[in-house]
């Protein structure tokens, strides 16, 4: 069972309190009508499945109820960082620093 740091509750809480909510930083375009079929496919269906770092969303559903973002390593399952929804995507440099 993972331990996840909720950036809203500012506490490490057990995985039981959270639900996974898919890949992070997928922006729903304001002009949805303007998307081509290919763009819609890319936005809605296509997801990363990396061996290594993934940016993903979780919801502290049995806690504060807030959605948060996480940087997780898919091999070790280690959470390198969690941050509030709406905060900018970590840069490659940020992630490199987290891995050190």
């Amino acid at each position, binding site marked *: *069972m*993972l*331990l996840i740091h909720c950036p809203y509750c500012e506490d490490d809480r*057990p995985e039981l309190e959270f*639900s996974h*909510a898919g890949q992070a930083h997928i922006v*729903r375009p*304001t002009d*949805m*009508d303007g*998307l081509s*079929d290919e763009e*819609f496919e890319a936005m*809605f269906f296509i997801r990363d499945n990396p061996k290594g770092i993934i940016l993903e*969303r979780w*919801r502290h*559903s049995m806690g504060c*109820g*807030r*959605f948060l973002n996480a940087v997780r390593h898919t091999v*070790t*399952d*280690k959470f390198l960082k969690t941050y509030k*929804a*709406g905060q900018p995507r970590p840069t490659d440099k940020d992630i490199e620093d987290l891995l050190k």
Partner: protein
Amino acid sequence: MTKSSSQPYRIKGAGTLSRARTVQFTFDGKSYEGLEGDTLASALLANGVHLMGRSFKYHRPRGVMSAGVEEPSALMNITRDNARTNPNVRASVQELYDGMKAESQNRFPSLSFDVGAVNSLLSPAFVAGFYYKTFKWPAKAWDKLYEPFIRRAAGLGESPTEEDPDRYSNRFAHCDVLIIGGGAAGLMAAKTAAAKKQSVIICDENPKMGGWLLADSDVRIDGKSGAQWAADTVAELQAMDNVRVLTRTTGFGYFQQNMVALNERVTDHLSRPDPDLPRERMWQVRAKKVVIAQGSIERHMVFSGNDRPGVVLAGAAQMWLNQHGVAVGHTVGVYAACDTGYAAAFDLYEAGVNVAAIIDHRAEVSEDLLDQAKTHGIEVHTNANITSTSGRLRINGMTVETSNGETKEFEVDALLMAGGWTPSLHLSSQSRAKPAWDEATQRFLPGVSPQDCVNIGGCNGLDDLDAVFAEAIKAVGGKKTKIEITDDVSTAGGAIGIVGPEEHKGKAFVDFQNDVTAKDIKLAVREGMHSIEHVKRYTTNGMATDQGKLSNMHGLAIAAKLLGKSIPEVGLTTFRAPYTPTTFGSFVGHDRGSLFDPNRKTPIHDWAVEQGATFEPVSLWQRAWYFPKGDEDMHSAVDRECQTVRKAAGVFDASTLGKIEVVGPDAAAFMDKMYTNGWSKLKAGRAKYGIMCREDGFIYDDGVVGKLSDTRFHVTTTTGGAPRVLNHMEDYLQTEFPDMQVWLTSTTEQWATIAVQGPKAREIIEPLVSGANISDEKFPHMSVIECKVCGVPARLFRISFTGELGFEINVPAGYGRAVWEAVWDRAEPMGACAYGTEAMHVLRAEKGYIIVGQDTDGTVTPHDADLSWAVAKSKPDYVGKRGLQRPDLVADGRRQLVGLKTKDPNKVLEEGAQIVRDPEQAIPMKMIGFVTSSYWSGTLGQSIAMAVVEDGFNMMGKSLYVPMPDETIEVEVTGTVFYDPKGEKLNG
């Protein structure tokens, strides 16, 4: 050798058990006496019983081999009563209690005469891969022949015939240091960490901590025997507030971020367990640091006839002698590839047992050991091997090939094997450390774990006690201390794979529990299994309940040798949790029966119970299904309820509907995004049916929404859908539209909802309502108003899920039953009835109202469901808008929701039945859709159904067919509204 009369192999002066505390037990119906502190195995051995089971495939006689959890052979059925029958209990670890009933397994009719042993004569048929080779064809033989055979053969032991009456509990714990294993290493680590004021949990699978210190007679620590030092250390730890000592507790699973699962067996060792105690307790421990001190497991030797009862591990013989005071025989042989074999032999010699000879596989043996043997007059043959053994139900002799090729025979009644020690990597490996091969010592050692854990002692490949202590102290950051240690025997060295002659005349077992021989492993390799994972599955080596604790390394070494590869090249099979078999009960804990899931009941539930309603579960709710009167069956009750609603009125408990309060300045704008239709322009006081889609355009949920004001909506969802709908809304609100000023609150359980439906609905409720004019003119269909009902603040809807004039009264849940009863007091004299969910389903189907999840699945769009009227054309954006424009979703010929009428009006279709265009076509037929809802409509006097059918909207009036096993049913495609198609009744 001095023997006590009832337990002839109990040695006076040996072991730590008290002779005064005797225990009575039975084995296969025969009574025996043992001592308190015995294991079932040690007690049987004390009585001279070695024959404890029959092997799985060949039904060969087997005895106990080990004194621990690695035991492959001595598996028992332990019975307390019909509900408490435990199969596959290892006699080597089961503590004896007074009145224990133990039975051997896998034998018929008796242990000493087993018909199945004929399998042994047929053994060529049971070679490696025999499942794959034998049970291939003909396919028909599977049902009648192969499967029953495999099922019978695969079963070791018997399951209880009654439900488990015991309680299992579950605890979470946190600590600075969790130490798994209470041997020398674990105890020293605990002592050190505890002295540093850290919070410590130490667990050990045995009833007594000390590990191999309990078996070793030579060790002296600070002047004490190993066993005494262990006992004193445990007492010290137990007295400290910051230490929790858990015995009979197995660390069986290592999960992420240092979460370790422990299984504590609380009552299995007790004669009369306290009913207030749980049988087992599951601990989920989160530790800052984990210290793995699992120790190591002694290997057997692979040679012909190594499985006869009386052939045991040397360490086990030493444990039985020094802890339990039991000798394994009168005259023992020793087959060694490691010094520990000598230690066991010398201890037994000193206890008065004859040692026939020590046969050492090694050419080089320490002078000191040879001198000691000489002093005792024990014959030693180095560079020699045992080539076979004899004896039917117990070993009676061994044949030895000496270094100069001579053959020597010895009479023995027990044989000790000392093959060397395999470090236990189970938990280290589960922590995701990759085992690392150590070429110098020819064994796998723990690799580097990504988690904060450390391996110490035997499991880390240490062979000497002073090194073990130094490592244990260092592991928890303690200071080096001076400890006086005497420890003569090293556990280093040993043999893996076949020793002695490569080819065996008899069977040389690698895996005793699954009856896998050295020959089987070789055959598997010759037949093309080159990966150890394939060899394992082909031979079933290591796949029994002991998970290959003894056999894996041998299997690997034999395969590697034949493949001409090194052991690490061939690779180690994966270690998986649980480390030892763990009961389902301890995983389930309290979550069973009525505690398995929440059982949700509405405020009106008890009333329905009192009225004799029959209930059905709907998601977690219990809902009144129908209210039978007299001796009505379901069919006639539902018929009566439906027709009463249509003719007079019915009262229905709709409290389970999901309810979400959407509030805030941007509430309407948010609703516009969430639902396919528009909400901004809807007037306050009006209600509307809304469809919620996912981004892909498929229906996600539906429900009626009341607009109470420009900033407040009362949203209803399907009964099962409320949590996911709220999650869906929260997701968009928090992450896509975070600037919107909207608050979402689940109010499902705050409101009791009473639906009153039927021509007399208004007449029933009107006198109860205050603060609202509910005439048709002032309060038309699809209205909502905040008012009072029976003086209670209420939200009253004019709404219908039956097609009749209808109202839904929402009152605070606490008033639910009182208001319901007030409504009922008026309704009943007017000829109305209470109706349940089945009638509700029929009534809504007669009107073609869909149920999301029944008439739709994840592939139905609002257009497919003939609900295009509820999809806004001009709204710039809503969730699902772009998805609905995808080429496949606007293409012709999609499966569309239609009505079906059976040609024979009395024939009711089966829900889920497939539909075809032409019933004469060849099988497999092309299925063009399926039935989603189907009922008998008493009102219409015929069966009605809804279905999704390819291009259904263009098939009105056409005939289609529903092929069933016994007949083909012809149906006519219709619209979905079967009753009052113009909707005149709604507006009464």
